[in-house]
C-alpha cells in the first residue's frame, strides 16, 4: 500500500501552479496584441488544463473550477468555435488575477476565495460568443 498525503505536495503545487499562472500571463500579453495567435492560445489551454488538474488532485475546488472554465474557453478557441474578443480577454485577465489571489490564500492556509462569480462571468461571455459565432 502506498498512501498519499496531499499536504506533503502543497509546496510543489504552489510552485507549479504559479509557473503556469505566469505562463498564462505571458500568453495573455501576446493575445492582447494578436488575439488569434495559435501558440499563445495553445499555451493558455495547456496551462489552464494543468492548473485544473493539479487543483483537482490537491482538493482546491475553487481553483479547479476556474481552471476548468478557462480550459473550456481556450479549447473552444482552439477549435475555432470562439473568437477572442476584447471583453473575453478582459475577463480572462480578471480570472488570472483571481487565481493568483486564490493561490495566495492557499499559501497562507486560509480558505480559498469564492471564484464562482468569476466562473459564471466567463461562462456568460463564452455563451454570448458561441451564440454569435454559430
Amino acid at each position, binding site marked *: 500500500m*502506498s498512501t498519499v498525503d496531499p499536504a506533503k505536495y502543497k509546496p510543489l503545487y504552489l510552485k*507549479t501552479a504559479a*509557473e503556469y499562472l505566469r505562463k498564462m500571463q505571458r500568453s495573455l500579453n501576446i493575445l492582447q496584441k494578436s488575439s488569434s495567435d495559435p501558440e499563445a492560445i495553445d499555451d493558455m489551454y*495547456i496551462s489552464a488544463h*494543468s492548473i485544473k*488538474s*493539479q487543483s483537482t*488532485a490537491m482538493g482546491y475546488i475553487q481553483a479547479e473550477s476556474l481552471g476548468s472554465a478557462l480550459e473550456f474557453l481556450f479549447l473552444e478557441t482552439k477549435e475555432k468555435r470562439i473568437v477572442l474578443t476584447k471583453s473575453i480577454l478582459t475577463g480572462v485577465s480578471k480570472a488570472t488575477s483571481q487565481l493568483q489571489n486564490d493561490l495566495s490564500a492557499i499559501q497562507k492556509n486560509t480558505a480559498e476565495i469564492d471564484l464562482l462569480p468569476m466562473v459564471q462571468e466567463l461562462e456568460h461571455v463564452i455563451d454570448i460568443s458561441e451564440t454569435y459565432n454559430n
Partner: protein
Amino acid sequence: MKILTVEDDHFFQKFYAEKLREQGFTVDVASDGEEGLQKAREFHPDLILLDIIMPKKDGFDVLTDISQDPQLKSIPVLVFSTLGLENDVQKALQLGARGFVNKSLLDFNALLTKIQEITKH
C-alpha cells in the same frame, strides 16, 4: 522494472516520478510527446505512462507513432486521464493504450494495480 513517464505537467511529473521510485521502479521522464518517443527508443521502458494533453505532440499522436514503430509497438502504454475528458480515454484505447488511470485522484495504489495487471501479460 523501467517506466517512462511522458507528462508535461510539472506537478504530476514530479509526483509520479517520486512515488514510482519509492516503490523501486527505475523511472525516466519526458516533458512532451516528441521527447517521449525519443526517450522510449533510448530507455527501452517496460511500460509507458502517457499524458494526453501535451505541447508539441499530444498523447494521441504518440500512440499512433508507437503503434507504427516496430521498436516501440510492444511496449504497453497506460494513459493518464483527467475528469471531463472521458472521450479522450476512449480514443486513446482505440489507438492502442492498454488502460488508463485518473491522474487527478492521486490514487497511487490504483496506478500500482494497473501497472501489475498490464505488465504481467
